[in-house]
């Protein structure tokens, strides 16, 4: 880590440094975070209100989107690519989930001829 006076950097417009290493605009970061939160919450609400199992999984994908966007935003905010790496992992999980979940959905659909999640409520303990 290089000890550099902050004032020196703020005023230094480094030639050719590129957008990735320029201080990002606070408003852009905030907006992106807000969108990620909105996507996440909308996905969440969707998960809670929709009764179609496939759509419910779609809503979880929406939440993944929100999370991924937040990761990207933070990566930008801190100028560190780790956030972007995490998006790749998110993609991995989403893909795995899609594979398994959709397989499961198809299985369930076969058994009860419907996609409604409620017909499976007898799996709950109540």
């Amino acid at each position, binding site marked *: *880590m*290089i000890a550099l006076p902050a*004032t020196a950097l703020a005023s*230094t417009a*480094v030639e050719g*440094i*590129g957008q990735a*290493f320029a*201080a990002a*605009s*606070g*408003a*852009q970061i*905030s907006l*992106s*975070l*807000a969108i990620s*939160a*909105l*996507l*996440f*919450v*909308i996905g*969440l*609400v969707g998960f809670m*209100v929709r*009764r*179609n199992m*496939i759509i419910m999984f*779609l*809503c979880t*994908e929406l939440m993944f*989107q929100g999370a*991924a*966007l937040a990761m990207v935003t933070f*990566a*930008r905010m801190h*100028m*560190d*690519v780790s956030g*972007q*790496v995490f998006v*790749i992992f998110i*993609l991995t999980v*989403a*893909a*795995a*989930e899609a594979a*398994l979940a*959709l*397989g*499961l959905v*198809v*299985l369930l*659909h*076969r*058994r009860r001829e*419907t*996609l409604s999640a*409620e017909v499976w409520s007898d799996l709950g303990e109540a």
Partner: protein
Amino acid sequence: MVPTIFYAACAAAAVALLMLLLPAAKKVRMAGTVLGLASIAWILVTIVRAIPVPDSALGNVGMTALCAFISVAAAVRVITHHRPVYSALYFVLVVISGAALSVLLSAEFVAFSLVIVYAGAILITYLFVLMLAQQSPGDTGGADAVEYDRVAREPAAAVTCGFVLLAVLGSVIFAPPRSTADAAADQIAAVDRAWSDLGRMPDALLERARRADPQVRVVVPRSNGKWIETQRDLTAVVSVQRGDSDTASDLVLPPSLLLDNTSRVGMSLVTRFPVSLELAGVILLMAMLGAVVLARRQSELADDERRALAGLDRLAGSEASPARSRG
């Protein structure tokens, strides 16, 4: 500092979403749409106004806001549309606008992988399954979709919970902005990290050094054993031997020679998160195996299920058709 106005906007958005979710008249849905758009705009404006935007960033912010608008609207359609296929398609729109946002945030690799993997692969799978499980038109009872797609479940509770969560998450945005010093330290750390990433890629380093000075024959480690050292002005110094000379001399690399996004992501993936990468691979493998197992069960259960649907009980059925089970 409690952003009251933001909370009010969240509440408005919640009401709007609720109006869209309730099985109501078209007018209400229209009002909900208007209110929803207005409240999203309100949220965005609130955020933008909370932090002064320099003129140089106006374009970026404007584009971000536009993409935000599109992705949120599309997301709302995902959860409100009665026909699952349309939901999936709207989701593609969400992914694409998300990719655009990623580009705006200088994450080009992510943007493309989102479009390719999500919109291209995962969503297609969804669509495929949706088609597979499509209800026959008779099941919908004349409406545009089946009952469980039309009628939301406990929308009030869900919307309340969700938007309380949004308000809470959103509060974070209104924390005091990071100090310039923090941002500067971040920048220095990031550049240093990027230069040292480059230091671990000898070929790339040699290539960059030659770009800076075509005379460079070879890059050698510096006296302290490192390949590259970051300077205070964000440039980097490497030791090189030029021409035929055996003596090392310093060469300053300008920031414009830093690695691009995709390279850095790749570098980070294999140098900082190798175990995670392996685990991700294992997960995918497991998912594949799981899918195979599920598919097998599917065919085994199908008989049973069909028999139950036909009103035969399991025992009777198995006794009645020994030959078939043998076969």
